[in-house]
């Protein structure tokens, strides 16, 4: 079967130089060679975002690392380059030699040693350098005290969990303005101020911070030394010049602020390296806003062309291996912020293709040509890049939750479905989870015990159980927050935030940044919606089965109860633009919103639900068992707030309409995931234009995000069976909010992904 369009086709438009091609080959080989994978400890981590083992994501090596039989691969989602051996200096780490203390000073000492003993690497062909092979959690013991674990296991029983690590968005503008030397000065000035106040704890923190900055300055300087050394030995004149350029750039930005576009890009790459090395990554903000002044200055001075800039950003993408940067959106005056770097950034992706996580923030006044280009890029590459996000809903949602207008305008898409007020928040995005199926299951048991006979009474029981889980989540998170700044401060991130250095408190501490909400992914909303609707109709209205009969049938995974399962399955289902069940969707979503937004964390901020959870649905199915919506235990749960697999049969517009019924400006995200088959377009239509119009309509009516793949189902099915076929090695899919190579994904993810491909034909 063939169509006019081939997915994952080679990019058109911008030819990469042979030098860039070589860098692309290296970058893609690292991914395909399983050297950029991110792991989590176990399936519990995916479902509850808490493994009960390590304190965050699975350390790849070291004393807390798990074997391949236990850990789960999230795919190539990482800028860490695996070299197959543990960190060589583990035994000499200060905390191992002199004792582990849960203080910023002790952490900083480890960090400085770790960075001082991380190689400064410069590879041929590179203008932009900086890569790393180990994260600090592979060398420093990273575990919360037992009291946290006690609360965590109790919470898991109730259906929730979470971690706290990174997943915010620093303001790289701070560092680009000050440089490392300026940041050092800022730390010292504030320390002097706090010395004057006699605030010993703040002074202690800033002492530690100083050690961190000094280590980074040494690390950047070592890149300059290494490049100079290579230049001296190099005989090829072009490569020699390139090494000299790297040496000059790194020498300049070791302490100084970047002076050129090229140095700014290099500064960003090295910041990402020294920051991500602490355990996990962040979104890094609005690249077009960060670089526009450098771009305009250098192009006006005639030292930079658009092609040069495109090539430098392409290097940045290849080097980090998938960046969470955003483009467009609005500026402080709420005017369209699209600029030359917005174009150059997308062109850079267009030139190299492959996996990336960049997002374009749409709003009604966006430069239409730019947005059309973004949709054209999605359609031609077919990898779900860029992600399409609604800037106005992001901002409205922050204002609704209590961010100031001054913080909210500079919102940036920062990760799978989450976004941040750049440099102004630390909110655990995408790190906590509430599995809504669990309270519903308890409600069913209670309703059977109490002989409840009508739906509204059952609903009340359900809301009480959601409340119970939420209360336990608050208790757990507050305990984590008490320990967090001591156990694992995020001292590099803190340098590029508004507040931590000025307050002398880590970004994980409080008061530190302006906003410190607790973001919670809510898993299983569509299954609870479909279940509640079916229970209401079949149990309480038609009285065809009792709750007890239903419960018995689910206990045995519907064995011998296929008629009952079919009855439950064939009620109205969410995702088909049906008023009855969609009203239940709004009710379920609003109820969890109401529950969480009335909870406060010890930092004084509310909990914010997100109608999204990146991969937990795959493994949650068997863990939850069968559900009243007619779902069998072995089936996954629905993905985020997308309809349960195979249940949206009324087409893409009906599904979009169903989702839009919730007011996303009160939630922390919730993406519409669409896997289109090329067959959807049979020659008449231009895919880019279809995507542009569809997404524009969806977002103009309140939709917040679209993750879009254009993918051939038959090809993916075959790729599961024959993952080694060369033609499948380059297939990139938007797994959820991130993209990865399909053949590298965990097998359960692959199967689940294929099962959700729909909209085959119309």
């Amino acid at each position, binding site marked *: *079967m*063939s*169509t006019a369009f081939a997915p994952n086709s080679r990019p058109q438009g911008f030819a990469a130089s042979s030098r860039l091609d070589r860098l692309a080959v290296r970058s893609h080989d690292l991914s395909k060679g399983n050297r950029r994978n991110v792991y989590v400890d176990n399936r519990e981590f995916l479902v509850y975002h808490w493994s009960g083992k390590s304190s965050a994501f699975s350390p790849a090596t070291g004393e807390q690392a798990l074997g391949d039989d236990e850990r789960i691969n999230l795919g190539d989602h990482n800028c860490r380059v695996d070299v197959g051996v543990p960190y060589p200096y583990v035994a000499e780490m200060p905390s191992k030699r002199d004792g582990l203390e849960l203080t910023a000073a002790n952490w900083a000492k480890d960090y400085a040693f770790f960075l001082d003993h991380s190689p400064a690497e410069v590879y041929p062909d590179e203008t932009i350098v900086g890569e790393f092979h180990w994260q600090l959690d592979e060398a420093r013991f990273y575990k919360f005290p037992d009291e946290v674990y006690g609360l965590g296991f109790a919470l898991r029983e109730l259906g929730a969990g979470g971690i706290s690590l990174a997943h915010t968005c620093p303001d790289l503008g701070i560092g680009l303005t000050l440089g490392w030397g300026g940041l050092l000065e800022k730390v010292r000035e504030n320390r002097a101020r706090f010395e004057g106040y006699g605030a010993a704890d703040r002074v202690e923190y800033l002492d530690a911070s100083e050690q961190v900055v000094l280590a980074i300055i040494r690390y950047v300087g070592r890149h300059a030394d290494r490049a100079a050394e290579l230049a001296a030995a190099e005989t090829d004149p072009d490569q020699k010049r390139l090494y000299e350029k790297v040496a000059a750039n790194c020498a300049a930005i070791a302490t100084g602020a970047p002076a050129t576009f090229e140095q700014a890009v290099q500064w960003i790459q090295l910041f990402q390296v020294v920051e991500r090395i602490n355990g996990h990554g962040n979104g890094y903000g609005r690249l077009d806003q960060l670089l526009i002044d450098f771009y305009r200055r250098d192009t006006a001075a005639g030292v930079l062309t658009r092609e040069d800039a495109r090539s430098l950003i392409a290097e940045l993408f290849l080097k980090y291996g998938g960046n969470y940067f955003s483009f467009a959106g609005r500026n402080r005056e709420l005017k369209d912020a699209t600029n030359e770097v917005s174009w150059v950034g997308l062109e850079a992706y267009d030139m190299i293709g492959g996996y990336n996580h960049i997002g374009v923030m749409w709003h009604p006044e966006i430069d239409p040509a730019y947005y059309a280009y973004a949709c054209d890029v999605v359609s031609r590459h077919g990898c779900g890049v860029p992600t399409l996000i609604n800037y106005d809903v992001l901002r409205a949602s922050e204002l609704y939750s209590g961010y100031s207008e001054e913080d909210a305008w500079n919102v940036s898409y920062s990760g799978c479905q989450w976004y941040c007020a750049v440099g102004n928040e630390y909110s655990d995005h995408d790190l906590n989870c509430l599995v809504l199926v669990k309270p519903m299951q308890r409600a069913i048991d209670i309703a059977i015990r109490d002989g409840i006979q009508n739906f509204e009474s059952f609903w009340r029981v359900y809301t009480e159980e959601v409340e119970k889980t939420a209360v336990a989540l608050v208790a757990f998170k507050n305990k984590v927050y008490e320990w967090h700044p001591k156990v694992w401060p995020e001292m590099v991130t803190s340098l590029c935030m508004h507040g931590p250095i000025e307050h002398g408190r880590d970004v994980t501490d409080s008061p530190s940044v302006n906003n410190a909400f607790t973001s919670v992914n809510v898993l299983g909303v569509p299954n609870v919606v479909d279940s509640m609707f079916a229970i209401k109709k079949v149990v309480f209205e038609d009285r065809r089965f009792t709750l007890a009969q239903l419960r018995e049938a689910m206990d045995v995974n519907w064995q011998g109860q*296929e*008629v*009952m399962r*079919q*009855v439950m*399955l*064939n009620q109205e289902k969410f995702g088909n*633009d049906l008023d009855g069940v969609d009203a239940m969707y709004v009710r379920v979503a609003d109820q969890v919103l109401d529950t969480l937004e009335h909870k406060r964390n010890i930092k004084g901020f509310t909990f914010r639900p997100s109608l999204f959870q990146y991969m937990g649905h795959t493994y949650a199915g068997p863990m939850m068992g069968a559900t009243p919506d007619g779902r069998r235990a072995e089936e996954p749960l629905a993905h985020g707030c997308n309809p349960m697999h195979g249940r949206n049969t*009324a*087409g*893409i*517009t*009906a599904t979009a*309409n169903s989702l839009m019924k919730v007011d996303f400006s009160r939630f922390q995200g919730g993406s519409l995931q669409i896997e289109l088959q090329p*067959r*959807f*377009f*049979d*020659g*008449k*239509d231009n895919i880019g234009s*279809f995507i542009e*119009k*569809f997404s*524009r*309509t969806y977002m*103009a*009516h309140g939709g917040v995000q679209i993750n879009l793949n254009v993918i051939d189902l038959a090809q993916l099915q075959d790729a599961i069976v024959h993952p080694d076929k060369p033609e499948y090695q380059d297939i990139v899919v938007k797994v959820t909010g991130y993209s990865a190579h399909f053949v590298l994904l965990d097998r359960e993810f692959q199967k689940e992904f294929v099962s959700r491909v729909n909209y085959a*034909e*119309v």
Partner: protein
Amino acid sequence: MLTARVFDIHRGTTHDGPGLRTTVFFKGCPLACRWCQNPEGIGFGPQLQWHARKCIGCYSCEAACDRGAISHESGPPIVNRELCDMCGACVAACPAKATTLSGTEYTVDQLIGAVMKDRKFFETFEGGVTASGGEPTSQAAFVYEFFKGLKAAGIHTALDTCGLTAGASLERLLPLTDCVLFDLKFIDSGMHRDHTGQPNAAILANLARVVEFARANRGLALWIRTPLIPGASASAENVSAIGRFIRSDVLDVLDRWELCAFNSLCREKYQKLNLAWEYEGVGLLSHAAAEDLLGAAREYVPADMVAVTGILAE
């Protein structure tokens, strides 16, 4: 109350007229094309369908039928269509929705309500609503009121017709129609009769009516659609003959000529009606064959006005 029998509503279609559309499939068709893609749309009344893939073998249908029209031995339920009076009792009883009735009654307001759900998409995509079938003009009085309501709401309308209908009902609909999708299958009337059960003289006369109307009302768009059926209409002779006819009689008001490649994806529909289908095993048209036919068509009609649509074989 005026009602119509509708056997399907497809939302988000991009193949039935300009932009993104909702297509309403009206029941009943005067032709009997041997390759018909919508067999459940031919009859005017409701039709019982049984979906093997969904059936769980609970025989609730058999128990619900008071005419004894459903029985079984060891396998699936067997419907005696002679005894069945389409009462729908088995449909209501089926927990798996394996048994269904093709054809739902709609009032004009209900149908307008159903298609308006995608209004926001029509606006962005410059699309609208297409009346298809079956043959929509077989329920012309209803379609007239339906289109009148849509036009009053500013919705773009398209009429997808096989062309065999009373000239007067067609003429009554044209002022409410923005785009006519007119099927032209064969120029040779004998071939037409052999493959569709009817000669084509009345169809060509109706096309002349549409062309005449379009000449007087330049707002009406006219698309000609020719199904490319292997072994039947998909020949260079037939496409050339249609092309010659279009050039001489239609071209001045033509907007688009679509050559619609055949596929047999609808075979399950025949199984659901217990009907044999001679096209069940017929494969897709090859790229090369489609290119040839496109070339033949472009001998007569400007290249940018004619296109092949649908799925092709490698």
